[in-house]
């Protein structure tokens, strides 16, 4: 049944369908509506979960860690500074191979403080060992949230579902919340083999010295790589049940013969999809929607770029002193590819700056401009003498 729902409410409903045992969260804009909606579901008796209203994001992640180790399906959500405050715990959750699911309502990081959307937060925790999946629209956010638990529990790895703050979280869309039976059919009850249990008293979170640390790191890396096929399977099976794919590892859209490609993540993809539909006049371009940022699907990326002369990688986060984070990653991923496209990297939409549909045409023109990395929607007049 189709409903018109705000993104946050939709995600809250989707998470509720997954029957989490423990939800812990601390409010932060723009994640707040998710927590508020879950709280309301709990208050109305529509969700039976232990909702722990913690005193910080640090504790939110910690509670999720403890709950997961104790054998409960655990969920949390945050944004921006909250993600950073969680950082230490995020590394811990993945290091202990705990299948926690977290929604990151993507937001810029201060200073200066800014509550609007970009990808600086999830990019800042790029190396924390989590699966990171990006959502182009709220239906994808709903479907990815459900898939996230299945992926997390199959891979015994935590999953971060990234959805753009405000753009998705606060936007009303017509979408479908799968019914409970379907989700139950898709998502078996959580069973954690290493669960904290007095009947089998294991010690979790031990000290590992130099003689074994490299092996733990190798295994963590391998686990993330292996998760790629789990993500694909999860999406395929969800599609079989619901009729909808949430994008697998990535999707390739647009004319097959396009020579210029644009790679983007999150809600920009929706903007560009709309642009592609609406502006027949502009030059044909291929849109690569990268859903899985971690693990980074190198082989799929190379296939997606097949036949392209140029690829414009669109970043919503920068690594000062280097350039776009995603740009650097894609460059590395395609390096050594035979007939690799020329790669161009720009950043747009930082700190919530609006990205209009016209940006699609502008991006397709980037190869012709043949400049290095830059913030494409920068307004030089506003710089003054600040430099």
């Amino acid at each position, binding site marked *: 049944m189709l409903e018109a729902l705000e993104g946050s409410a939709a995600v809250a409903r989707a998470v509720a369908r997954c029957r989490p045992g423990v939800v812990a969260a601390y409010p932060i804009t723009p994640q707040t509506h998710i927590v508020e909606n879950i709280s309301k579901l709990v208050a109305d008796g529509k969700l039976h979960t232990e909702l722990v209203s913690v005193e910080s994001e640090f504790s939110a992640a910690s509670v999720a860690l403890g709950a997961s180790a104790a054998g409960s399906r655990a969920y949390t959500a945050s944004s921006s500074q909250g993600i950073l405050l969680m950082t230490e715990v995020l590394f811990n959750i993945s290091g202990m191979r705990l299948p926690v699911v977290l929604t990151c309502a993507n937001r810029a990081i201060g200073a200066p403080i800014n509550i609007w959307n970009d990808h600086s937060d999830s990019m800042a925790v790029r190396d924390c060992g989590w699966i990171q999946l990006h959502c182009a629209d709220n239906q994808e956010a709903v479907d990815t949230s459900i898939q996230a638990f299945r992926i997390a529990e199959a891979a015994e790895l935590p999953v971060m579902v990234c959805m753009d703050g405000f753009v998705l979280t606060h936007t009303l869309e017509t979408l479908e919340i799968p019914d409970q039976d379907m989700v139950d059919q898709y998502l078996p009850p959580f069973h954690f083999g290493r669960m904290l249990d007095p009947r089998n008293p294991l010690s979790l979170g031990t000290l590992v010295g130099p003689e074994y640390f490299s092996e733990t790191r190798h*295994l963590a890396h391998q686990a993330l790589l292996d998760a790629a096929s789990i993500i694909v399977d999860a999406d395929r099976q969800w599609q079989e049940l619901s009729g909808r794919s949430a994008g697998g590892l990535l999707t390739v859209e647009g004319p097959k013969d396009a020579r210029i490609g644009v790679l983007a993540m999150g809600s920009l993809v929706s903007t560009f999809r709309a642009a592609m539909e609406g502006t027949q006049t502009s030059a044909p371009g291929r849109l690569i929607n990268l859903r899985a940022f971690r693990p980074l699907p190198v082989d799929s990326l190379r296939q997606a770029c097949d036949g392209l002369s140029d690829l414009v990688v669109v970043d919503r986060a920068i690594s000062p002193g280097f350039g776009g984070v995603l740009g650097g990653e894609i460059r590395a991923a395609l390096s050594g590819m035979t007939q690799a496209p020329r790669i161009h990297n720009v950043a747009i939409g930082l700190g919530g700056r609006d990205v209009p549909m016209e940006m699609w045409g502008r991006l397709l023109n980037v190869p012709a401009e043949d400049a290095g990395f830059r913030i494409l929607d920068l307004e030089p007049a506003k710089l003054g003498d600040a430099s």
Partner: protein
Amino acid sequence: MPTPMNRGAFAQAGSSLAFKTGTWRSAKPVHVHATAPCHGACPAGEDQQAWLALLQEGKPQQAWERLVTTNPLPAISGRVCPHPCESACNRGQYDQPIAIHGIERWLGDEAIRHNWPYPRRAGDARPERVAVVGAGPAGLSAAYHLAQRKFNVVLFDSLPEPGGLLRSAIPPTRLPRSIIDAEIGRLLSLGIEFRPRTALGRDVSLDDLRSEFDAVFLGIGAGKSRHWDVDGAVPADLHEGLALLREWLAVGALPHPNAVVIHGGGNTAVDLARIMRRAGVRDVHVVTASGLPGPGTESDDVLNVVPRELEQAIEEGVQFHPHRTINRLIMRGSKVVGVEMVRLKKLPDGNGHKARVSFEGTETVLHVDMVVPAIGEVVDPTGLEAILRQKDYLGVDRFGQVNGHPGLFAGGDARDGIKGHSSGTVSAAIGDGRRAAEGIDALLSGRDADEEKRPALPYTALNLSYYESSPRIELSTLPLEKRDDSSEIEGGPNTVDALAEAQRCFSCGNCLACDNCWTLCPDNAVLKTMETASDGSHYLFDYDFCKGCGLCAKECPCGFIAMSEDE
């Protein structure tokens, strides 16, 4: 093969047992069953700590059985012993010593009341025959321990009844006759043949005994008063203290002077003084070269009397003149009218010995009409002339064998001093009898005599944090006005008091099963056993894991754990 890394690096419960921290250790804890000071000080060789522990467990009969493995006469010794155990008791440095003698007496009386039998040592009957001469404390003890070792024992005594000085020299006010009868009766019923009215040198010769028996023990006491005069002067009607005491005990006869001075500082002097005082003699003086117990008196210079007897004597009006001797008899004709005393003290003589030095100018006079010497007794040489050779006592080794006479043993008041052993008390005699039984057994078994030797436990080895101050029980004494010639003056504790008093024992040097080592080991390296471990405790050290921190040794209340260098 290295352990394969698992998902998330988890570990199995208790897997640390694979990591043996015992290799870190440089010193290891060991159980040391040291000698409690009471045990070390006991002339009879009793391990008071051991039987007090059984009493603490609420096992009076087992406590008594443990007691009589060394001393078969606890109801007697509990009454007459000057209890050096209590002087040595570590608790004395903390608050007050355990009233060991009172508990011993109570156990002895309980045994009589319930007719508890002696526990019998296991073993086959021995063919050898041993003669024991003298049925006093030394002879009785020797006979008992020899009988326990399954020897054929014949016990001789010149008197019709066994007991020796227990009957002849200790007043019933200190030792009721019923107690003597009960304990000695039980002892003789172990199968000891008793031959009364058989005096050495009169009815039987030492040579006869030596040829008839495989070994002979002489517990003949010191029955002859030491010669006494003052610069050669002796009153015409001189009565010796011991003779007076025996006469009074036997027939109730006593001289009645107006004022008497008794010269001597032992039990005979004090017992006689009290009897004469109670019999109505106005002034009874005791002049002794020893000092009264107190801060100014060194331990080797104290009056050799049970301290509480001394107190009672003073209560009863006996006047003591310590650190004095009689310098001169003041005579009118051959009759004494007074004595001149002078102060003296035992002082180092510069040659490593101590000698008594009298101080000129401290002379004082006592007006008395009778002087009674009670300066001690020596062995009656009758029948022993060849052995004694003019000496006062028999010289013996540690196990009582008379020097130069293999197979002939002696103990009690008849023997000469032995380094490390006290003399002159009932308990010392009991100890002599026990050691002589070991000496005889060893001789007849063709082995060396042996005695358990354990290190002593000093007060400083205790951890006093685990004890609480608690006063010693009060023991009753017959009020002055009720004292007569036959009623026992001292009372024993009741059951409640005796058991409570036993609880005060610090258990010096022995495990009291407090669990401290087990509770306080940070490394779980002390294990508790259901059964008693080989060292008598309920705890084992797991040296695989013990890191040697020494915490258990430090926190053991009773000094049962020591740290020793690890190899």
